[in-house]
């Protein structure tokens, strides 16, 4: 944790698709800022392409996608490919919220989203502290390896 400099890291946040659930995403954005990261907030109802555009424009290190309304599974298909096409090869991709319709086994849900190319997926009781911890770990690992 000590090895990374959060101020040098830019994260893009937003809620994907036709989803208006902004609360958790805003709290997350506030928390990441407080923790020292640079945060670019796209807000609710953000098409996948806009995430990528913003990430390019701000030379972001990671994209934090929220999805609550249950249709995230449809909205997120091909998200990693979009990033790669835009030249954002190594960008860190996190997803969090209520990712699917109805009550489903989390391990399965997680697997589905990791399969789509997200580096991590978070269930809806996730607290910001845990996200910060994961970010620190992942960026520290990248620093070492990269």
């Amino acid at each position, binding site marked *: 944790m000590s090895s990374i400099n959060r101020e040098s890291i830019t994260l893009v946040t937003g809620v994907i698709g036709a989803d*208006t659930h902004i609360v958790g995403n805003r709290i997350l954005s506030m928390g990441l800022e407080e923790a020292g990261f640079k945060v670019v907030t796209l807000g*609710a109802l953000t098409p996948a392409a806009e995430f990528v555009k913003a990430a390019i424009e701000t030379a972001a290190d990671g994209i934090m996608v929220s999805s609550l309304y249950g249709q995230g599974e449809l909205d997120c298909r091909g998200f990693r490919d979009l990033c790669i096409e835009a030249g954002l090869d190594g960008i860190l991709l996190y997803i969090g919220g209520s990712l699917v319709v109805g*009550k489903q086994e989390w391990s399965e849900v997680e697997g589905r989203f990791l399969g789509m190319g997200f580096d991590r997926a978070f269930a809806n009781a996730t607290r910001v502290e845990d996200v910060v911890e994961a970010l620190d770990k992942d960026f520290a690992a990248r620093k070492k390896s990269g």
Partner: protein
Amino acid sequence: MNLNSDDTPISAAAIPADDFALMRTENLARWPTGADVDLDEAVEFHKSLPQEKQLGWVMRRAAEEGRCLTQPRGGFGTLELQLELMRALDQDGMADIVPTTTDSYTRNEQWEQAATGIEESKRQGRSMLNGFPMVNYGPKEARKLIEAINKPAIVLSGTAMPRLTCEVGFAAGFSGYLGSGIAYTTSYTKDTSIAEGIRNYQYLDRLAALYQEKGVELHRRQPGFLTGTNVPPCIAIAVGVLDALLAAGQGVKNYGLELAQTLHLIQDAAAIKVCGELAQEYLLAAGFEDMFTPVTSLHWMGAWPQDDAQSAALVSYGGTLAAVGGAVSVTTKSTHEAYGIPTPAANAEGLRTTRMAVYLARHIRLDDLPEFKAEVDLLRRETRPIIDKALEMGDGDAALGAVRALEAGALDIPWSPSRFVKSRVMPARDADGYLRIYDPGDMVFASDVAEIHTERLKKRAEVEGVAFDRNLAVKSVYEISEPLDKLLPFPWAAE
């Protein structure tokens, strides 16, 4: 749709009959099923329904008899699934009002995509849409839903674009319709201007008024929950009153006002009372003398706990709060809320638990409790200035006033996704469990009122030994969803 583009100056005045006829023609031409909307036939159908299947009549009777009716939410992606759901809610759930929630594509007027969703749902044998695609099915098919149940039916469609859906819904025989220009535009959209949202709902209200002119009293309803997230009653009521003035302006006579529960028995009862009171006060002042404005209480709209047993208490208490507060109806959730759209069985259980809770508390009233009276008084003092300010900013016009007040932040909505809302106001729960305002943003409260909010929240910070800062608001978003061992641990656990 040139008659209602953003160029037209917004106003609360009624849409002239000729203009409206034109608007309707344009609107109905947007999707094939629009052609099936036959207003006169629909009017006859509504008139042929027994009174107890007409929500306008049912809400009036419930208010007269002091009932608290139950209503769930619910929508699935195909007619077959929706029929099954509505029958279950009617029969197993004993719902007094049966809902049809539309799917998100329909809400966004993406009917092509909704069509795909129907196909996918049929193929997979389960709902791939988060609601019923009302427009795609059209009024003839949707009428089967009305025929399948013995209760009145209401359309629930969280959107700023209800124009075609409302035409289809009313023509199908739905006698209730939830939604309003200010509440839904501020909570369901990012880039839709408030004026546009208001115009869209003026269309809907004008349509309801047209039915009224032809002798059918439909029930229109304002969704007071807004962002559902710790909305202080003063804000919910102020928006409700403004939305009611807009509906009245189009000629609506039967207009429900919803209020999301704060989960504080006294604050919720006070809110229900003041909401009904102020709605009438402002409607009368604006010259609308015969608008019926029953209040509906909504089960907790914020984040729910992951534990079904904990959620059962929220469901049940939701019935208690509605009954004690004297709400005319209560809109229910289920123990599945934290996870996803409930199964018909879970939805029906939520209805029955709520109904029993209503039964148990039906005699309790807090009107004479000094703490209740003080809260009523405070709430009046909080709310009137917000409405007055908005009306003043609109030179007496509720539509213009709402747009300008939201722009300036004089009327503000917490946690709103909309670009046209400041969303700087920050509510938090105080040490006594009341929802208060930590940061008013640009909203202006009388100094003694503001003082009460600050003092109560400072007291909480003190009691909990935490800083008096924005975190109080964030913690209050999480609070009710926290596991019990955090909310109420065994107090003297061994180290």
